[in-house]
């Protein structure tokens, strides 16, 4: 016997047509009513097939349950583990029904409850509360309610017309005029000071090092930067120093980690005084030149 959905008017129990090919509990495709949660889904599967929850072999619904889970939208799968737990129970029941089992002992070895009976009891309990919720909601949705006197109710009654109507609305032109007068007397808005980005170039810092070496050689880099607090200036000065070393204009020496970096001029035979030399980094076309 097989089961096919049959269209019915909205609000009626989902329609089901039976053929003689499959049993109803084996059918996997029926139109389900609204349901909530894993027990709600299982109960919906039972009810959509018009089966008795007290007698239906729950294991036979395993396939339909898994099909239904696979078809659930992602946003309804917030409690995936709960669905999986019920699905695993159904698969267990189904496997027990398929495989041969040893005869039950005359005297039960333990008093462990039958898991299928336990799940069936949970279904019955869940159904009772679900139906009770429906019976609660019906009259409330139709407006049945008791109302106590309390301040909030008094306020609501006032809003509903139990107080005198509000005075006539003000003319919007009055508001416009008031705003104009306010604008006339309000002090002019001073724009915030403009922030101008500062540019520190390696050429500037190289010239700075050269100038320091003209006055006194050697010099200690840390002394040169003693008054500088801007980390960018420090970094660019350091890079400029390395550039001058690469060009063999200066030599540097540091005797200990974190110790003073001593910078000396490297005199070149026949070369003019470094202070008067054309600025190799100031030409603007050196590939290593960078602005910070």
């Amino acid at each position, binding site marked *: 016997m097989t089961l096919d959905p049959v269209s019915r008017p909205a609000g009626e129990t989902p329609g089901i047509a039976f053929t003689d090919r499959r049993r109803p509990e084996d059918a996997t495709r029926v139109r389900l009513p609204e349901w909530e949660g894993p027990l709600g889904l299982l109960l919906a599967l039972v009810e959509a097939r018009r089966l008795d929850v007290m007698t239906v072999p729950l294991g036979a619904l395993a396939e339909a349950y898994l099909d239904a889970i696979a078809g659930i939208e992602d946003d309804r799968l917030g409690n995936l583990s709960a669905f999986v737990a019920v699905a695993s129970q159904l698969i267990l029941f189904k496997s027990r029904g398929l495989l041969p089992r040893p005869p039950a002992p005359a005297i039960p070895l333990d008093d462990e409850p039958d898991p299928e009976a336990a799940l069936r009891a949970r279904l019955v309990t869940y159904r009772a509360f679900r139906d009770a919720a429906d019976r609660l909601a019906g009259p409330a949705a139709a407006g*049945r309610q008791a109302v106590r006197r309390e301040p909030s109710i008094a306020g609501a009654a006032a809003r*509903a017309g139990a107080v005198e109507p509000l005075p006539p609305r003000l003319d919007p032109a009055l508001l416009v005029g008031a705003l104009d007068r306010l604008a006339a007397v309000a002090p002019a808005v001073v724009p915030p000071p403009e922030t101008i980005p500062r540019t520190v170039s390696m050429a500037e810092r190289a010239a700075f090092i050269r100038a320091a070496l003209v006055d006194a050689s050697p010099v200690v880099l840390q002394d040169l930067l003693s008054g500088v607090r801007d980390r960018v200036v420090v970094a660019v000065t350091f890079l400029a120093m390395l550039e001058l070393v690469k060009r063999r204009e200066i030599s540097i020496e540091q005797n200990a980690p974190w110790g003073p970096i001593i910078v000396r001029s490297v005199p070149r035979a026949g070369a003019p005084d470094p202070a008067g030399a054309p600025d190799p980094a100031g030409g603007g076309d050196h590939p290593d030149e960078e602005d910070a």
Partner: protein
Amino acid sequence: MTDVERSAATAADGDEAPAEPAAADLPGDTLTESLLEALLFVAERPLGRRELATLTGASPETIDARLGDLEVTLAGRGIRLLVDGDRVALATAPEAGLLIGRYVGREPTRLSAATLETLAIVAYRQPVTKAGVERVRGVDAEYALRSLLHRRLVVELGRADAPGRPILYGTSVDFLERFGLLSLGDLPLLDAAVAERLVTPDPADPGPADPGPAGDLDPAGDPGRAGIR
């Protein structure tokens, strides 16, 4: 405003605070149904039976008897006695709910199916823990309970005497109002088999911790809920 200023202002308004009535001025056990009705009429919140006894000087037995009389008298009238466990209040008749709701601008209560199921479980099994609700529904009840607490349909009644001392939940007087119930006894009947099972407490869902000699959790809870399980 200081206390002195406040009392001066009150005196100037000619609206002095009522003096505490002497015990001899209280009706005591001569309390009539109409006096009780008047007291409940002006009360802006549900009053507990013990509080009524203190206010009127009447014995708890007299309070119970007069409340019973008042309930009978009001049956069929536009005002009814609403009983939330130990506390009572006057409320409009549920059948007038549509009219009153329109007047005060209160929309009918609409809840999602999950929230409604959770509310039903709390209503029938109170006091119940979150785990107790989840055992019935098979899913996490955190969101639904939070929503019900936010709507004041469910309240915390105390804590269970169990590991972790979980919170016990029960329905509020707002729940009775919103669902047109005059007491928890007006709840729709449950499936007989399930109702019978609920009479015996669920061992996995322990009751309230140390309920005290009167068994109440006043002001949040009350002994009237114990029989609902």
